[in-house]
């Protein structure tokens, strides 16, 4: 497979310079856009494998752009924004962004998220039944969960919760998304269900539930199943 093509939508020259150098050095090809119009043109003409999207662009808002693109494309979108409030993250993720990085961010963090998003996008065609994250192993076909090779007994809700997170390993899944997927559309206003079940799940899966290594909370946004291999 050739070097992945990344579309960078960013209007600030210093950010473009830094990302150009960084991504180039790590084996990515880059196409740059300074406006949403340019981004749309590049997206259709060059079919990039991944989009890095700033939210505040001169000709519009990146969140509307994300929503529009999601109507016709599954290309992974990682939002890079100086808007650091949890509500902004939730809005971007609910609009269809795959991940969200608040400026300033470190290169390692960026590269880890990019790899996760690319891996996820490439694997959607042939998702295997087994997800392994550190000591945790989930066999989605047999519905068997093991930690350090010992089988863990989960309730149906705990299992569904774990399965949804496992489908998005390395990526944050919003509370609303989890509530909808696990409890149904009628329960999206009951986030405490989610928190109580997450606590129960951690007690069964984590070595130290108060210091979760796998099921991490992004407070105010949602949960992320962290793959310890991704750092």
């Amino acid at each position, binding site marked *: 497979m050739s070097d992945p093509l990344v579309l960078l939508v960013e209007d600030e020259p210093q950010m473009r310079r830094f990302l150009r150098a960084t991504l180039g050095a790590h084996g990515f090809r880059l196409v740059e856009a300074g406006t949403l119009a340019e981004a749309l043109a590049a997206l259709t003409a060059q079919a990039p494998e991944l989009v890095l999207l700033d939210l505040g662009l001169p000709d519009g808002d990146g969140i509307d752009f994300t929503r529009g693109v999601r109507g016709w494309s599954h290309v992974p979108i990682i939002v890079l924004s100086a808007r650091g409030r949890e509500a902004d993250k939730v809005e971007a993720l609910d609009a269809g962004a795959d991940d969200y990085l608040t400026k300033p961010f470190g290169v390692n963090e960026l590269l880890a998220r990019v790899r996760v998003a690319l891996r996820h996008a490439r694997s959607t065609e042939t998702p295997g039944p087994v997800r392994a994250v550190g000591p945790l192993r989930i066999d989605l076909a047999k519905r068997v969960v093991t930690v350090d090779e010992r089988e863990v*007994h989960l309730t149906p*809700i705990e299992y569904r919760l774990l399965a949804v997170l496992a489908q998005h390993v390395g990526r944050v899944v919003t509370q609303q998304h989890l509530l909808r997927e696990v409890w149904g559309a009628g329960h999206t206003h009951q986030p405490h269900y989610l928190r109580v079940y997450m606590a129960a799940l951690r007690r069964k899966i984590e070595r130290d539930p108060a210091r979760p290594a796998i099921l991490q909370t992004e*407070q105010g946004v949602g949960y992320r199943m962290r793959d310890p291999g991704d750092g």
Partner: protein
Amino acid sequence: MTDPTPPRTAPTGGYLQAASLVALAAGLSSLAHPWLALPDIAMVFVLVIVAAAARYGRGPSVLASALAVATYDFFFVSPQHTFAVEDLRNVVTFATMFVIGQLIAALTLRLRNSESEARARESATAALLAERAALAEEARAASFKARTEEMRSTLLSAVSHDLRTPLAAITGAATTLRDSSVELDRARRDDMVATVCEEAERMERLIGNLLDMTRIESGALAVRREWVPLEEIVGSALTRLESRLARREVKLTLPDELPLVEVDPVLIEQVFVNLLENAVKYTPESTPVDLVARALPPPDGGVEVVVADRGPGFVEGTEARLFERFYRAPGVVGGVGLGLSISRGIAEAHGGSLSARRRAGGGAEFVLRLPPTGPAPEVPVEAGEGAA
């Protein structure tokens, strides 16, 4: 200045009443005429003139004097029922009556003037006092403004110092790295790069703190309460601090039976992050940090979380100062002194408290108390437990 009190009687009323006083005197005198000598009657009229002068002022007193003289002459001085005068001594009586009337009127006027002057002085004094009160109010406002200004300038100097210091380090390190004339060995190069990264992180934290402080100060801090297990908030705080806590022992005591708390998890996480960061910053790496949570018994209820360290602690009596903005413990380098005051602001926005105390055996303890908010919501229990 005008006399604020109205005249006691309207001018026409004064003349009328002066005239009726004279009529009254004439009536009484004629009734008593058989028993009174003429000088006695003159005294009755003098009395009336004095009364009119004292009471109604100069104009009515002139009228009263003229009427009294005329009545006295006409009805009592012989020949009666004419204005003719037999005895010239009576003319002296008339003149005396008239002069007494004018003298009394003048004295009364002077008295009244000085009275209204006194009243004017009094109201002037009152006005002065009001003015002084207004000035004092102004002074208070000015001193508040001065304090605000002082706060602002403290903020500015703290911020500019704390932003410039890391910036100076970043600029220095980055320009050194760029300078091709300097040969840097690998270790020095790594040092420079580490400086840039660390100082940039420091700036990021400072800016975050300043934004939080601004939000709390402006009252724009919205508390979005949700029912959360305390353990989850502690966990997310520890995750956020993962790299900073890598070489530090953090002992957690979180009893299983802790109730759910109804708080804004994002804000309370910030409190834990600030307290743990402080502990890491101000105590030696070899010393442990303890985080102990417990449910408080009734009647208080709620939960208490104590973050305790084994560092140098703080000087007795400085507990309160720790929470002041821009306060930095003596000898401490780095940080702008906002973390604790932000944390207290968050605790108070929840109706709770954050306080500091010296730890028995050495070190500092920070105590977060969150009051109970009501019964936690039910979470339906699943019917079947076991493998899904």
